[in-house]
């Protein structure tokens, strides 16, 4: 079956894929997860490469199969699949089995990479930077406080948009070869580095908060710092015992009200 005419994908087609990749999880479902989003995102490629209705239907059907990965890292798969679809169309192969095979092979490892680097570490680390700017900012200078959310979204956008836009173009340019380059990344190493960064931020925040907010215990600021460290340790102990944040919060409210009734403060 020869699928003619065959076009090369343009940068505009790939730009359309970038835009549509933002809707990858719009119809996330428990059966085939991100399949509809993936098919929606790759649609410009299908439209450009498959003009014959039968070939187009086949392409839609193969991209409606189960798909689930990290939403940011999906961009790399989209780029590689676009390349493989193009190669298959140029060869007159409307099955494009290689594209399906590579898609299935890449989604698991990239999901793990994205979950560790973006969800588990980068987002909390940058949120911590933003929150620190707010908590320790000077409320007489509003712009300093506003810097918190701006820093968080700004720095995070560089990290995720870089991958989401660059991933599609790079995936298309390198094709399957990109897998070799991805092997060079060590998510654990990145996670450890971000973990150290968060540890430093937290080590500074625990004493800085009571000092900057003027906590005093028995008229001593240092005892205020010790009290904060003890409270953090106590809450941490609760979290380690698998008590949720919500229950810890309600428990704290209950204890504080009881303490007030008992006249303890």
């Amino acid at each position, binding site marked *: 079956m020869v699928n003619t005419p065959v076009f090369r994908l343009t940068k505009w087609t790939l730009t359309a894929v970038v835009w549509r990749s933002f809707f990858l999880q719009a119809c996330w479902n428990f*059966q085939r997860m991100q399949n509809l989003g993936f098919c929606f995102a790759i649609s410009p490629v299908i439209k450009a490469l498959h003009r014959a209705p039968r070939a187009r239907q086949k392409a839609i*059907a193969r991209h409606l199969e189960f798909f689930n990965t990290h939403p940011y890292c999906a961009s790399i798969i989209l780029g590689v699949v676009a390349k493989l679809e193009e190669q298959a169309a140029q060869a007159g192969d409307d099955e494009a089995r290689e594209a399906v095979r590579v898609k299935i092979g890449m989604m698991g490892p990239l999901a793990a990479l994205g979950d560790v680097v973006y969800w588990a570490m980068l987002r909390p680390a940058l949120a911590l930077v933003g*929150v620190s700017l707010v908590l320790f900012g000077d409320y007489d200078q509003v712009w300093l406080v506003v810097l918190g959310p701006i820093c968080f979204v700004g720095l995070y956008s560089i990290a995720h948009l870089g991958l989401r836009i660059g991933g599609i173009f790079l995936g298309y340019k390198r094709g399957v070869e990109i897998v070799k380059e991805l092997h060079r990344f060590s998510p654990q190493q990145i996670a450890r580095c971000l973990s150290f960064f968060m540890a430093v931020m937290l080590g500074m925040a625990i004493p800085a908060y009571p000092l900057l907010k003027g906590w005093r215990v028995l008229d001593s600021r240092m005892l205020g710092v010790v009290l904060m460290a003890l409270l953090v340790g106590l*809450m941490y102990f609760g979290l380690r015992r698998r008590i949720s944040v919500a229950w810890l919060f309600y428990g*704290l409210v209950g204890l504080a009200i009881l303490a*007030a009734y008992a006249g303890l403060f």
Partner: protein
Amino acid sequence: MDHIIWLSVLGAVRALDYAMVGQFMVSQPLVIGGIFGALLGDLPNGILIGALIQLLWISIMPVGAYVPPDYTVTGGVTVILTLTLVRQYGFHFGTSMILALGMSIPAGILSGKLDIAARHFNVRLDQRAESLAGKYGLTGIAWANLAGLGPAFLRNFLIYLLWLGPGVWLAVKLSGSMPPQVVKGLGLVFWILPALAFAVVLEIIAKDRAHWWIAAVFFSVGLLLLIWPGEIILALAAALAGATAVVCWRRKW
């Protein structure tokens, strides 16, 4: 009433960013606190409330088939309730924030539960997608995919509407009738809430043996403050410089 509807629409639109569209993080409490704060005329306090709630649920994200409570909804509702209580009714800021947070946590839990239901409903959309594609081609796929946004918008709009309509009324009634001991208790929780937030961060990084680093930085800052009492910024800068030196020295992680 008008502003409640508009705030609910805005809240529901930004909630789409949480897991469905973009995930640009504009739905995060830190950001939405600023947006609602600016709209309600108190930008710094809006951001402050958002920042505290951001820390409390800093590591919670829907990953794969795991759908946690949507605490970004909790964040948005807390900011609006608190600023309404403070600015329109003159209640104390810290007490109002803790009361509003206590009332808003169920909103996030409800949103999470309804999200799970919506993802089950989306299975039907997925099943219809192939017949839609046969009929309308790629346009059918686009309809099926974007149709998933409708229930998500509606669910969060109704949650915001419920919490901002009867919710504000209830919060005002509660705030006006609280005994002084309850007011004192809530005020105390406002001051120690960052301790819970810091413990949440500690839990994320503890598995990488990072608590030794935390202890090292904590005691360094304490020591520097003993040497230069009152020079908090100087102590923090010195600790940061020390940490940078460690990063440079230990190139391989």
